[in-house]
């Protein structure tokens, strides 16, 4: 047992993290080595002083109340989701997603697309649907839309602005940075008359490759059928805006068509 070894692991010795055999060997060495004893005394005292210098911070009183308020919101969203799940539209069921994946695969083989592309498209669609049902918390809140733009700067290879809607019932709630497959994306959360809508902003050609196309109010809207539900997609400047939510089918088409994605 060398002094160097002992001093290298004095911290672990003081923390009681050495194995019992080493602990005994260390104690023996320390008993005999005056210099190492000094190091030990110093380390002990230093740990103590560091603790006293850094510790002793208390959370401000209002933090707990603020947090309880957020819990209330989560409970409310959960209660709402439970009531929505009782309706025929069920985002959380996995079989429609599996059916959609199969559907995309069949389309893929019919039109002769490489299988990997079809897989990718199907997987992405599933990611999109899962993202909505997970209802992950926002990274940026809705209070300041310019914060959203700033937040995504450098994170996504395209600028992210919350889409605007003419519908007064459509409110922007917050946004979160996520990845769809390997693509960086922005999840924008909205509330449409009490129901959640997720708008995914991302850049990947795969998801629109097998999409159906239609025109709503003079605007081209792409869509994928997912079980009994639909994911509607608007394209602008090489960026996709995918809409999905606990809403009826026509509403999702309307929202996609009416969204102001460039301003």
């Amino acid at each position, binding site marked *: *047992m*060398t*002094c*160097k070894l002992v*001093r*290298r*692991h004095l*911290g*672990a010795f003081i*923390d009681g*993290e050495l194995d019992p055999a080493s602990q005994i060997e260390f104690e023996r*060495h320390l008993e*005999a*080595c*005056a*210099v*190492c004893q*000094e*190091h030990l*005394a*110093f380390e002990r*005292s*230093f*740990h103590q*002083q*560091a*603790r*006293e*210098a*850094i*510790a*002793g*911070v*208390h*959370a*401000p009183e209002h*933090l*707990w109340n*603020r*947090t*309880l308020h*957020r*819990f*209330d919101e*989560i*409970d*409310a969203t*959960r*209660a709402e989701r439970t*009531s929505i799940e009782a309706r025929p539209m069920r985002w959380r069921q996995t079989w429609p997603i599996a059916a959609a994946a199969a559907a995309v695969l069949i389309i893929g083989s019919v039109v002769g697309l490489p299988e990997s592309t079809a897989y990718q498209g199907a997987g992405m669609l599933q990611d999109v649907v899962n993202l909505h049902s997970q*209802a*992950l*918390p926002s*990274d940026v809140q809705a209070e300041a839309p310019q914060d959203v733009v700033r937040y995504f700067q*450098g994170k996504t290879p395209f600028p992210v602005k919350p889409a605007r809607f003419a519908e007064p019932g459509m409110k922007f709630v917050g946004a979160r940075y996520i990845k769809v497959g390997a693509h960086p994306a922005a999840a924008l959360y909205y509330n449409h008359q009490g129901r959640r809508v997720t708008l995914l902003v991302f850049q990947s050609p795969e998801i629109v490759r097998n999409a159906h196309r239609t025109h709503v109010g003079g605007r081209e809207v792409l869509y994928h059928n997912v079980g009994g539900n639909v994911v509607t997609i608007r394209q602008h400047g090489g960026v996709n805006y995918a809409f999905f939510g606990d809403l009826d089918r026509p509403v999702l088409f309307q929202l996609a068509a009416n969204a102001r994605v460039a301003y």
Partner: protein
Amino acid sequence: MPGKSKKVEAQRRLFEAEVRPHLDTLYSIALRLTRSPVDAEDLVQDTLVRAYRFYDRFEAGTNFKAWLLRIQMNSFVNRYRRASREKQVFDGPMATPVGEGVMSRATMRGLTDPVGDAERQLIAQEIRRAFEELSDEARAMVMLADVEELSYKEIAEVVGCPIGTVMSRLHRARKQLQGSLQAHAVQLGIIEEDDSELEDPIPLEAFRARKAAKS
């Protein structure tokens, strides 16, 4: 709240009761990590919201505090990491290697037993300053080990690395803290720097021989 089921209410009460005792810990670590009271509050709130959402994934009987701290550490890394550069510095070989004998014995003696309250306070202030200069992860290490007194196993869980890595990172963080403190303490005249070069550790044999010669 109307329509709130009994199960949801019971779950909520249980979660609140489990979380409340850890609020100060979460906040104090968040404050040391973000260096800003506003960001610290946001980080704690984000942590608790995530924890509440994923409470059903927490395995009863495992360490709740470590679970919370792990969520907070992940939130911090995701939210505030400066393009993950810091993590790379930590995971890779450190830019500034830390030697073992950074302190002379005179310095050690000067810092081991500060004389009087004034000196004690001055040193505490210097420790805080030195601590603020540490990297994010080094601050986390010192907080978790020295302030929260978590075991290395718990720290490994929180930070998400092997126990051996905790040991070396913690050692490095403490040595950096001491090195920075020493430099400033000498400048401020809290301790005197001695000119004698760092003494070689006395080998056990030599020590015994000297002891034997004395008697």
